[in-house]
């Protein structure tokens, strides 16, 4: 069964890029969404296997999404230009892998491999 990834990214060119890379590697895509509100709405209907989060979104920091994912037991990684995403988004992001920005495809795929449950 193919795995589903939720993409939360507010820069549309980057979101398109992530979508293309991940689709090419066999992921089913949930999103991409650019706001906390949209992400939470998607999570009410679907449960992805994993998520990739940008930190600052159009309607605020991503933390409520990270908390919702934690509650659902869905692992996530962060792709942020901030060196310390937890300084912006709070403790909920502290343990997550930050693959950085611009993201390296291999690093991204390896990080997802790492957190996705078998």
């Amino acid at each position, binding site marked *: 069964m193919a795995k589903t990834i939720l993409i939360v990214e507010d820069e*549309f060119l980057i979101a398109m890029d992530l979508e293309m890379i991940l689709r090419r590697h066999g992921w089913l895509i949930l999103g991409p969404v650019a706001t906390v509100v949209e992400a939470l709405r998607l999570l009410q209907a679907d449960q992805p296997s994993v998520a990739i989060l940008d930190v600052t979104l159009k309607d605020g920091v991503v933390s409520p999404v990270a908390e919702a994912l934690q509650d659902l037991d869905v692992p996530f990684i962060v792709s942020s*230009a901030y060196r310390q995403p937890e300084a912006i988004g709070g403790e909920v992001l502290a343990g997550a892998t930050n693959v950085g*920005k611009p993201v390296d495809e291999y690093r991204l795929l390896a990080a997802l491999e790492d957190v996705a449950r078998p």
Partner: protein
Amino acid sequence: MNLVDLYRLMRNAHIQAQSIVDTIPEPLLVLDDSLRVEAVSRSFYDTFQVSEEETVGRPIYELGNGQWDIPDLRHLLEEVAARSTAVVDFEVDHDFPTIGRRTMLISAHRLFQPDRSSRSMLVSIVDASKSRQREAESELLVGELRHRIKNLLAMIQALAQQTMTEGRSAEQYRDDFLGRFRSLAAAQDLAFGGEGETGLRSLVEQTIQPFAGKGKVVVEPGPAVELARTQIVPLSLILHELATNALKYGALSAPEGRVQIGWRMERDSAPRLRVHWQEHDGPPVTPPATTGFGTRLIEFAVSRELGGRVELDYLPSGLTVEILLPIP
């Protein structure tokens, strides 16, 4: 010289010295070896809003209801008093009852007096609160700038990654990529150039300018529309994609071909902007077999980034595009 003259001389010298000291904006204190205040400069009174009576002759830790009883400071002064050391710019963060939270840089030096072995010390206090705040602000600014630069790099990487390579020569790929790169750079300049608001007309004219030779692209008159900063980059890239597509396959590839661009405001429930792009007299039109990056970008940018709708009609007479956008 008699005693009265000597007294006058010394008094004048003292007054002069005192007035020199009083011009120094940083508060100064002279403490004796038991850390009692011997003298202070005028700016000490002004800065900490205290009077001479409640200051001179009292131990520094008792001043202003003990507001100077700061453990770090006590440690520092006792160190200087005990040995012949000096301390320079020791930082003390303290909440002063009268003036609030401040960052003070405190320096203390033993006074050199050849006639007696004085253990007095001169303490100077520099209020660094404002400069510390400025430093913190500029650090924040630099952080934001770094963030924006990385984001921009990620956007450029996204363009490079998604520009089609299949069936394209290296040269063609380079031109496609650089065209997108330049349109992104120009859009960034419009969005963050800081030259006031950007109207739709100037955005359209700037974006199609490289394609607009010999009157082949006509921008119809339309109402003035001010764009939000977040609309500038997606709209520029959309128009750039339409224009390059027209140049490669559409109306701009034919000698007689033309493009018309226009817009109008529509008010049903909320105000909406309708932009149309109409190609004429180009080569025969057939819908593309696969969805390229250009089409994906247009659809993604309109629907997800701008919250609108787009229709691309490959009419035999020429490509027609209708974009409907909410206006905030």
